[in-house]
């Protein structure tokens, strides 16, 4: 008899395959026959079968609170993921560098705002054609130069809300490219004035942003009509410009 070949250990070993109906007919019959004769294995089969049946019928669960507000907060202001910076921010042991302390940041922000407002006002006063002309006029405006002899900083690239349509894409990307090139030039000139550790951090973050830009462009090449991807790309470019502008405004090392 086949059944005689089945011990309780063999029954245990074959049980999962039996429940998944992957046992061959002879082994299946042997297992069932053993279960009829063995109280221990019969109880085991009944219990495990009940567990698998109940598991498949478990109801869906409800969270204790509405999770949507937390989600919409995060998707409302999409940002390019900066894994290193993000991880560090979450790590309490991370020591914030001096130039990221609130006071220097606030000073840089104030300077940035002053420069931006001046340049934007001047540009919009002199040119009716809107923000796309800012890049070409911002670098050499007297107002910008008057800010404590800091280098002339191009104004921020225009935030393009609706970039899903193709006609807007090329000019906007050109504006970004132009501004980034100008800022890159300023930052290159300033590099020797900055602390080497600061420069290393800046370069690392620029590499991360450049990766995000490259990924967005690659995804856009596959799906050029995606509004989401256009926004991602513009956000990454804005981040790069913001970082370069901040660097351009950093005080020289003491």
């Amino acid at each position, binding site marked *: 008899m086949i059944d005689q070949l089945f011990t309780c250990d063999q029954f245990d070993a074959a049980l999962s395959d039996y429940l998944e109906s992957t046992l061959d007919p002879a082994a299946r019959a042997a297992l069932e026959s053993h279960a009829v004769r063995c109280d221990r294995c019969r109880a085991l089969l009944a219990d495990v079968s009940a567990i698998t049946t109940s598991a498949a019928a478990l109801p869906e669960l409800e*969270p204790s609170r509405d*999770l*949507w507000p937390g*989600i919409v907060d*995060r998707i409302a202001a999409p940002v390019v993921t900066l894994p290193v910076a993000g991880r560090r921010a979450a790590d309490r042991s991370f020591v914030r560098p001096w130039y990221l302390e609130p006071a220097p940041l606030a000073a840089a922000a104030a300077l940035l705002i002053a420069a931006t407002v001046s340049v934007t006002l001047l540009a919009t006063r002199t040119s009716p054609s809107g923000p796309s002309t800012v890049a070409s006029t911002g670098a050499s405006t007297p107002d910008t130069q008057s800010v404590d002899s800091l280098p002339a900083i191009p104004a921020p690239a225009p935030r393009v809300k609706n970039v899903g349509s193709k006609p807007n894409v090329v000019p906007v990307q050109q504006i970004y490219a132009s501004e980034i090139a100008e800022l890159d030039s300023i930052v290159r000139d300033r590099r020797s004035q900055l602390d080497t550790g600061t420069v290393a951090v800046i370069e690392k973050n620029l590499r991360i942003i450049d990766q995000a830009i490259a990924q967005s462009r690659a995804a856009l090449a596959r799906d050029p009509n995606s509004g989401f991807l256009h926004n991602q790309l513009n956000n990454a470019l804005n981040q790069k410009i913001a970082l370069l502008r901040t660097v351009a405004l950093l005080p020289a090392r003491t």
Partner: protein
Amino acid sequence: MLTATMDVVATIPSEEPPSDVARAAAGDRQAFERVYRANMQRVFSICVRMSGDRARAEELTQDVFVRAWEKLPLFRGESAFSTWLHRLAVNVVLNDRKTQGRERSRAAAGDDDEDTEESYGASAPPSHADRMDLEAAIALLPPGARRVFVLHDVEGYRHEEIAEMLGVTSGGSKAQLHRARLLLREALNR
């Protein structure tokens, strides 16, 4: 009335009209909220059962939908949206496990095998019940066994799929499943 309404909601298939998914992929947040409402319970359920932690599962559910929002433009409709989202949820939970595992191993410099029987045997059953129910028993399974049990017996994945997701062999998945079932039986009969 409320119960009746909830029953009706529960019977609505989680597959929303394609237009909502398409609109969400194009950046429509209202459409994405409808997608969220239609799929939230299922995603939350798998997060709870795989993580064994309701509070963490709420955070993970939010992570899943934020990730879904980011990745929706890449969804090609090669599978049902609910299948795509479900797999995304599993990946988010597993990645969270890996992150936590790395942090734990840095702290303890020990084996990454989190499947000690300690937590299962030592944990007290829920105080609201004389006998542990299946949901509570699943939450107390060792993590590795719990993940395989949830993926196989609750969610219906095959061992080959589970092996790929978890980076184990198909035989390893079967062994964990068998172990999980025996541990659950022990807990439920306690």
